[in-house]
C-alpha cells in the first residue's frame, strides 16, 4: 500500500545565518498509511511541532520533501492551501483560536474557506459537532460562553469539518483532567473508526499514545529515534527510560518485576495486559 503522507529526509533550520541558528528537525523520515492511527512522541524540543507544521505546508522545508498522495506538496506553492484542507491540523490549546459570534460559524470557517456551498457546509458543521459530542443547542451559542473543554471540542470540530484525509492533533488533551482527557480520546477513536481516515496523535504522554495508536514514532533531539508498534517500542522500554522519556507506569512495574528475576514480558503498557501477564505467571506458579 502507498503511504498517504511521506516525509523524506526533512531538515528545518531556524534563524539560519545568525548565532541562534539551529536545526529543529534534521534528516527526518515519516510515513502515514491510509487509515492508520499513528502516534508521535517526544520531549519539548524534540522537533515534533516543527515536523507537524510541515505536514500541511505551514512551514517550508529547508531541505527534504513532503509527499501527499505521492505528489510533492511544494511542487505548486500557490496551491498550498489545498494541502491544508487535506491534512487537517489541530494545534495545541486550539480553543484560543476561536473568534466567531457563534459556535456554528466558527466550525464553518474552514469549510467556508474551501468554497463549499451552503448546504454542504451545513452538513459538515453538524457532522463535525456530532463527532466531538457537541449538542445541537450549543451551535448557536457564542463559543466564549462555553467551558474550557467544550471550547476545545469546537476547535477540533472546526478542523474535522474540513473532512481532511489526515487529521493531525497536537496534544489534544493538554491541561484537561483525567475525565476530560478520556472523553476527547474516546471521541477521536470513534472518529477514526467511523471515518476510516488517518489520524496522527502528537503527545508527550506515552500512556496516552500507547493506549490508542497502531504505530508509534519516537523523536529525540530533532531525529527519528524509534518507529514501530507499541509492543515493539515498549520492548525497548529500558532504552526509552535511559534517554529520559516517560514510560507508562505499568511498563515500569513490569521492568521492576523483571529486575526481581521474574520471567515477565516487559512489552506491556496497559493495566489489562499486565494483569493478563501476571495471571499467566501465577497460573504457571501454581
Amino acid at each position, binding site marked *: 500500500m502507498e503511504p498517504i503522507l511521506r516525509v523524506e529526509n526533512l531538515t528545518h533550520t531556524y534563524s539560519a545565518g545568525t548565532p541562534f541558528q539551529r536545526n529543529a528537525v534534521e534528516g527526518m523520515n515519516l510515513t502515514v498509511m491510509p487509515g492508520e492511527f499513528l502516534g508521535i512522541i517526544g520531549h519539548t524540543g524534540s522537533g515534533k511541532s516543527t515536523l507537524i*507544521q510541515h505536514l*500541511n505546508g*505551514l512551514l517550508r522545508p529547508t531541505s527534504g520533501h513532503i509527499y501527499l498522495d505521492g505528489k510533492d506538496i511544494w511542487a505548486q506553492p500557490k496551491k498550498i*492551501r489545498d494541502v*491544508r*484542507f487535506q491534512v*487537517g*491540523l*489541530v*494545534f495545541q490549546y*486550539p480553543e*484560543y*483560536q*476561536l*473568534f466567531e459570534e457563534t459556535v456554528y460559524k466558527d466550525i464553518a*470557517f*474552514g469549510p467556508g*474557506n*474551501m468554497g463549499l456551498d451552503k448546504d454542504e457546509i451545513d452538513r459538515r458543521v453538524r457532522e463535525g459537532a456530532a463527532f466531538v459530542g457537541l449538542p445541537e443547542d450549543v451551535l448557536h451559542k457564542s463559543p*466564549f460562553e462555553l467551558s474550557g473543554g467544550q471550547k476545545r471540542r469546537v476547535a477540533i470540530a*472546526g*478542523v474535522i469539518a*474540513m473532512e481532511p484525509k489526515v487529521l493531525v492533533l497536537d496534544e489534544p488533551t493538554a491541561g484537561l483532567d483525567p475525565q476530560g482527557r478520556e472523553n476527547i480520546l474516546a471521541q477521536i477513536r470513534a472518529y477514526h473508526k467511523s471515518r476510516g481516515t488517518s489520524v496522527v496523535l502528537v503527545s508527550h504522554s506515552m500512556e496516552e499514545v500507547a493506549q490508542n495508536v497502531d504505530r508509534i514514532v519516537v523523536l529525540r533531539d530533532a531525529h527519528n529515534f524509534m518507529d514501530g508498534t507499541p509492543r515493539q517500542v515498549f520492548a525497548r522500554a529500558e532504552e526509552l527510560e535511559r534517554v529520559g522519556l516517560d514510560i507508562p507506569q505499568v511498563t515500569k512495574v513490569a521492568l521492576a518485576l523483571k529486575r526481581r528475576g521474574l520471567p515477565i514480558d516487559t512489552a506491556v503498557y496497559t493495566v489489562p495486559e499486565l494483569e493478563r501477564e501476571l495471571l499467566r505467571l501465577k497460573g504457571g506458579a501454581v
Partner: protein
Amino acid sequence: MLKDITLGQYFPGHTLAHRLDPRTKLLAVVLYIVALFCAKGVVTYAIVMAALATCILVSRVKLRALTRGLKAVYVIVIFTAVMNMFFTGGTPVADVWLLRHITFEGLRTAVFMVLRIIMLIMGTFLLTYTTSPIALTDGLENALSPLKKLHVPVHELAMMMSIALRFIPTLIEETDKIMSAQKARGADFESGSIFKRAKALVPILVPLFISAFRRADELATAMECRCYHGGDGRTALHVLHYKAADYLVMIGFVVLTVGVIVLARMGF
C-alpha cells in the same frame, strides 16, 4: 516573520555608553536633540555630527545596526528632501526644465533637513541600543518623579511601559501561533483586495484581544498576590547612582548644546 521586528532593540555590552546612568543618557539625548535643532550652518552641524560620531565610537555599536533603523523612515527622508528642493525660494540651479524649480537655497536646506532627520534617529537609536528597556523605564520614572507633585501618575506610567515591554515578545509569539492555526483552516492573508485582507485579520485580532485581556486579568491578580500596592513605599533592586563619568558626560553635553546655540546665533 513577525519575530524579526526590531523594536527598541538592546545590544548588551560593557562600554562606557552602556554603563552610564540611564538618566544621564536621557538628559544627553535631550540636549543632543536641542543642539541638533539649533544647528544652522556647516560649522554647527559638523560639531553635532562629531559628537554623535564620538558616541557611536565609544558605544561600539555597529554603524550597520544604526543605518538599519533608518529603513523605516526612508520615505519621510526622501519626501522632506524633495519638498525642500522644490519649494524653497531663491536662485535656480540652472535654466532648463525641472532644474528651473530647484534652487541653491533649496538644495542646502534639503541636505540639512535630511542630515537632521538621520542624526535624530541615529541618536535616539543609540540610546535604545545601549540601554536595556528596564533601565530606560527606571531612568524615566526617576527623572520624571518631580512631576508626581503635580499628580502625574509617573510610577503607574513607568510600570505600564515595562509591562508592555515584557509582553511584546509573548504577544508576537501568540500572533504567530494564531495566524498558523487560522492558516491551517484555510485562512488566506496574502491575496485579495485591501478590504478582503482587512477582513481576513478578524480571525487573528479577535482571539488576540481576548487573550490579551485574559493575560492582563491574570497578571493583575498575580501582581496583587505579590503584594503590589502601587508605587508608595516601593524600593528597588537596582538603585540608580550618578558616578563621576555621569557628571562629566552631562557637563560635556551642556557645553555642546550651549556652544552650538551660541555659534548658531553668531551665524555659523
